[in-house]
């Protein structure tokens, strides 16, 4: 060998392979550093939870957890903290968002994966995803200056015509539950659509071809092969959307009307848990119980999203586990 490579050779003898004191030190530093970082993340969230509980204690001490959640009078000036109107507002707007948003999101996913020509698939996907790029406050701005005035006549007509339905009728107020729900529906379409698309693309081709080979029309194929297979995933996606809708703050704050009462119809003003925190934190700085009440509202919000996201994960995981189990024998046969 030439002289230059000679110096590069690992020297012979016992010492060359033995561990030196410095060797592996950086490895150990990196390993334990990263481990500490990861444990830090767990501790941070544990602390986060602890702080929320500790700092909401004053209001629970005053009213008790049960009456905090189920009393319907929220009047901070009289130290009355019943969060039911807020909870109801959060649930009603989120429910409206699901009823409007999920069918539309699933339809976009079906159209993109099964019906659209390959050329328009990518542009359509990008357009749907653009909905997620619009910030919450911009939805609020648009909802306040465009949706509220333009939709009011239509809402009033609907309210008068269908007054016999429950929760419909009477005078429509400008900002209301329905507008907030509609905006939330638009905001959850991208995520529900993305997850539905993901599960629909994993439907095995054999299943779809089996349906078509039996003489099914395109729609019958979707009903026989695509929808049953992706049901779990779609449910999970809808749950994730629900989690988003429940925690959404600014857009709702702008268009819900901020009236701490339980509205009689879906066209009444209301309030939500997140909106009350955004609006009242300023005045609450000096009042310990008021502040605790807002933190408690945050805690309820947190627990609600935690439960819903756990449910969402359960559905999504079950769907993907089912798919893995279903695809395994197929892979085995191929190999």
């Amino acid at each position, binding site marked *: 060998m030439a002289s230059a490579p000679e110096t590069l050779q690992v020297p012979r003898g016992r010492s060359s392979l033995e561990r030196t004191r410095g*060797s*592996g030190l*950086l*490895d150990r530093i*990196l*390993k334990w550093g*990263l*481990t500490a970082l*990861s*444990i830090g*993340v*767990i501790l941070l*969230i544990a602390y*986060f939870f602890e*702080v*929320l509980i500790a*700092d909401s204690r004053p209001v629970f001490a005053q009213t008790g957890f049960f009456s905090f959640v189920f009393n319907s009078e929220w009047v901070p000036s009289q130290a009355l903290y019943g969060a039911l109107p807020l909870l109801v507002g959060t649930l009603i707007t989120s429910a409206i968002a699901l009823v409007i948003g999920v*069918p539309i*999101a699933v*339809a*976009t996913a079906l*159209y*993109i994966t099964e*019906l659209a020509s390959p050329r328009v698939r990518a542009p359509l996907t990008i357009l*749907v995803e*653009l*909905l997620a*790029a*619009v*910030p919450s*406050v*911009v939805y*609020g*701005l*648009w909802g*306040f*200056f*465009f949706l509220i005035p333009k939709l009011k006549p239509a809402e009033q007509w609907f309210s008068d015509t269908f007054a016999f339905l429950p929760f419909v009728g009477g005078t429509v107020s400008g900002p209301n539950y329905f507008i907030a729900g509609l905006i939330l529906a638009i905001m959850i379409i991208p995520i529900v659509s993305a997850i539905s698309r993901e599960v629909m693309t994993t439907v095995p081709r054999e299943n779809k071809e089996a349906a078509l080979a039996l003489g099914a*029309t*395109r*729609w*019958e194929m979707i009903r026989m092969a695509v929808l049953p297979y992706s049901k779990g995933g779609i449910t999970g996606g809808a749950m994730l959307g629900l989690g988003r809708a429940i*925690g959404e*703050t600014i857009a709702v*704050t*702008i268009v819900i009307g901020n009236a701490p009462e339980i509205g009689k119809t879906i066209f009444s003003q209301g309030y939500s848990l*997140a909106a009350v*925190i*955004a609006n009242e*934190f300023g005045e609450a*700085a000096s009042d310990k119980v008021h*502040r605790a009440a807002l*933190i408690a509202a*945050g805690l309820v*919000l*947190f627990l609600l*999203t935690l439960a*819903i*996201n756990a449910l969402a*994960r359960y559905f999504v995981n079950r769907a993907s586990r089912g798919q893995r189990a279903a695809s395994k024998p197929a892979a085995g046969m191929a190999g």
Partner: protein
Amino acid sequence: MSSVSLQPVSGRRKRADRGARAIVALFTGIALIPLFFILYYLLKEGLGAWSWDFFTTDPTGSFLGDPGGIKSAILGTIEMVAIATAVAVPIGVGVAIWLVEYGRQSWLATGVRYFIDVMTGVPSIVFGLFVYITLVVTNFGGASFAGYKGAIALALLMLPVVTRSAEVVLLLVPNTLREAAYALGAPRWKVIFKIVLPTALPGMVTGILLAIARAAGETAPLLFTATIVNATTFNLGDRMNSLPALIFQDVGQAQDRLVQIAWGAALTLVAMILILTILARLVQRRSRLS
């Protein structure tokens, strides 16, 4: 009688097929209506507000005279998002590396993944509340509201997004590359820094840019951490303005000039986020991992 007769598909089934397909297409169209309306209004109302002065002067806070521009909000958003990125990215990528290269399927890794998932679901306003309780109310650092506290709230929001996306990309790095490097006698830290991270880089940049785009549009956590002011500041310990907070404040004002400023600021914010999103997609296309 030699011809084969195909039984025609019944009219009812054909109509059901055509009807269902039409409904699906119609719903897809409906999904895009708000997008077009929002973009249309943003351009129509927002472009009118844009001018040189709009970008180069601070808001005056005056209700009667000239309301000023949005300079402090643009700079505040950039400053806070930059700090949040500088905090969230190293931690998020570090945790992702630990999960993929060290933790793998251990119980600790499962726990970390679970907590990161929990973080993803936490509403942004609750993060704001947390920073408000721990740093603002306690007058941490000698002042109540501060730009860096807003940045911390944004960083908490970004952390799970960065970690999750980085973990997914790191898992895509083929194991054969790690093995090749180990077989050459490379120590683990070098395999991570010289082989795994460079290979995963484009994909991780995509995830990071999307996290930044999300943080830039957040209002709720900033309202009670950095709050809303008029003046531009480069001191992170001061109260700091931001585009979303400025828009939120101006929506509430019943004054046409301020509303127009809100539209102009909204167009600016959406343009910034769109640029980040497009950049993210371009980087993603360059990634060698699928």
